[in-house]
């Protein structure tokens, strides 16, 4: 489904290489986790896949179901099925959460040649999905992420993901800033979306999240490359021994 080959990325403004040849394939129905020390390029990978400005791809490819992602605008990638749950969800004063969600859902439907969702159908769906994530009606009325707690922001990301039903979900440190209960809630939301057609790329610092979202494959990223891949046990190894052993072994 998601295929990344030899991806090299530098910062647009500076001569700084961040990704130095990432190879990664996420199959439909699988959950891949990426762990790695600070500054290893995990978040950059998520931004490059979703099309954020400021990065320059110097080599390599990234495609979703054969379509070249790197050629697409961010909104085209979204319509193609890419979703990034932000590490720091953005506050947008003046834009109501509900209007934002509805515009996004309908923009994607339109891009895919589907009819827009009627106001009633949309409302029904959003209420049901919000309820499962314990997001109350008041939160839906408020401006996007404004005045939301850390946990509320992350739950709001998952709600967007549930409404947009992407093919490829990229979660960038969704566990950061969450207490145990909030993390469980978010993980439940993610698990509810797991199915045969959907792929997940879960970026995290800690094994903790992976207790709740069970990965099929765990990758260790360091200095802009995936240096080791394995099963869920790799995450436990990191949890117990840190990254030093793995990095030493690789080097």
């Amino acid at each position, binding site marked *: 489904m998601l295929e990344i080959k030899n991806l090299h990325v530098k910062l647009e403004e500076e001569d700084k290489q961040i990704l130095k040849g990432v190879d990664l394939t996420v199959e439909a129905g699988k959950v891949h986790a990426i762990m790695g020390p600070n500054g290893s390029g995990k978040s950059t990978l998520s931004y490059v896949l979703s099309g954020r400005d400021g990065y320059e791809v110097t080599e390599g490819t990234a495609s979703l179901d054969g379509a070249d992602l790197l050629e697409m605008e961010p909104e085209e990638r979204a319509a193609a099925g890419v979703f990034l749950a932000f590490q720091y969800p953005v506050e*947008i004063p003046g834009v109501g959460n509900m209007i*934002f969600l509805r515009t996004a859902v309908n923009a994607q439907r339109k891009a895919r040649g589907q009819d827009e969702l009627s106001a009633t159908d949309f409302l029904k769906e959003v209420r049901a999905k919000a309820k499962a994530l314990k997001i109350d009606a008041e939160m839906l009325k408020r401006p996007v992420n404004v005045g939301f707690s850390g946990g509320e922001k992350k739950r709001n990301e998952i709600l967007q993901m549930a409404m947009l039903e992407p093919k490829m979900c990229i979660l960038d440190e969704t566990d950061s800033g969450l207490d145990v209960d909030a993390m469980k809630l978010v993980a439940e939301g993610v698990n509810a979306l797991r199915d045969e057609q959907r792929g997940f790329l879960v970026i995290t610092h800690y094994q903790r999240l992976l207790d709740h979202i069970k990965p099929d494959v765990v990758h260790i990223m360091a200095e802009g490359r995936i240096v080791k891949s394995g099963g869920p046990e790799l995450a436990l190894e990191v949890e117990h021994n840190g990254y030093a052993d793995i990095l030493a072994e690789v080097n």
Partner: protein
Amino acid sequence: MALPQAKQTATEERLAVLRMPDAGCTRKAREAALERLRQMGLPGRRDEYWKYTRPDTLISADALPAALFVNDESPMFDEFDRLKIVFIDGVFSPEESDELSLEGVSIDRLEDICCKDIHWAKELYGVLEANGQNPVPRPLAALNTAFASDGVAIHVTGKPSKPISLIYRHASETSDAILHHVIRVESGAEVTILENGPAASRFNKCMEIDIADGGTLHHVRAQGRDHQRRAATHMFTRMGHESVYKSFTLTVNGVLTRNEQVVELTGDDAVAHVAGACVGDGEFHHDDTVFVTHDAVNCESRQVFKKVLRNGATGVFQGKILVKEGAQKTDGYQISQSLLLDGDSQFLAKPELEIYADDVACSHGSTSGAIDETAMFYLRSRGIPTREATDMLTLAFLAEAVQEIEDEALADVIVARLQDWLARRR
């Protein structure tokens, strides 16, 4: 002091093509206004108060032609039950207007205030305008008082069941209209005044509003969308004890607009909110000039102005809060902000506070900025295309000003219009 020659010449050239209407009881006020005008002269480029806006086309003998803006939009405020008063190129149209009768208010044409002996209107005409000439001269308002050819006198004595809607249609490409309205809101009375339409190729409009103790006036205006129209408007508002004045103006298009608001809080505990939102694209110059005087205790004033500018459009804000000696417990707030959608557009702001009382809270702020790139990426990453995302963020930016409209249904109409206009791009 004698006027500079150039100013005097420009003034006389303009006056030469104007004729004072045969105005009976307002004649004295008109002649006094003409005298005031001759003393101060029409505005010129060197005048400090006109530093950011070129007055040439507003003072020239003849109005520049303005093409009519033809569109398929439904008329503004059509959703509302309202009493319609229609002017076509500045001339009252009895055929297009509703019957001027509504419980709680009496409405007369300006030309009838003498024969009907409407005292309050005769006594108000030109008075607030004359008061508003200090400390800054407003010559176009004096010109208006002297030469206004039409207008209405609205006397609010109760709480009319629906808004009074002044509609200004533009029919001739060379029309040059001067309208003057006087409004008196009696103690405890409450009214909503709506205004919309381009009015004329060149429009000079003056409104004098006298709100008695405990009176309330809501004003919502949508200026016409004709691209080439020019307008200079003045609203002079005098406010009594515990009175409320809330005014909102929406401007989309128009090659030149200068809106002046002169508010005087003369009774304790009065509340004045003056707000505006404008969207300009290309040949667009919009100037909000506001002067709020606190001359009583415990009054509140708010000025909230937001401008969205692109393709070389210019926005101007000159806003002042003057707190006179003894006007203690004043709460004054002023914010003017612009969203510049490209590097060609500009926003020129001059916020001023002048305070002679020591127990007051006054604040002012002014900012210019571009679209927030982070917010933009967030929206796009959710599948919202750039153009739609820009419109969403633009509306969000304008929201603070639109929220000043108290009536939610009216605010919703304004938002819907803005959405539609942004989508049309013209």
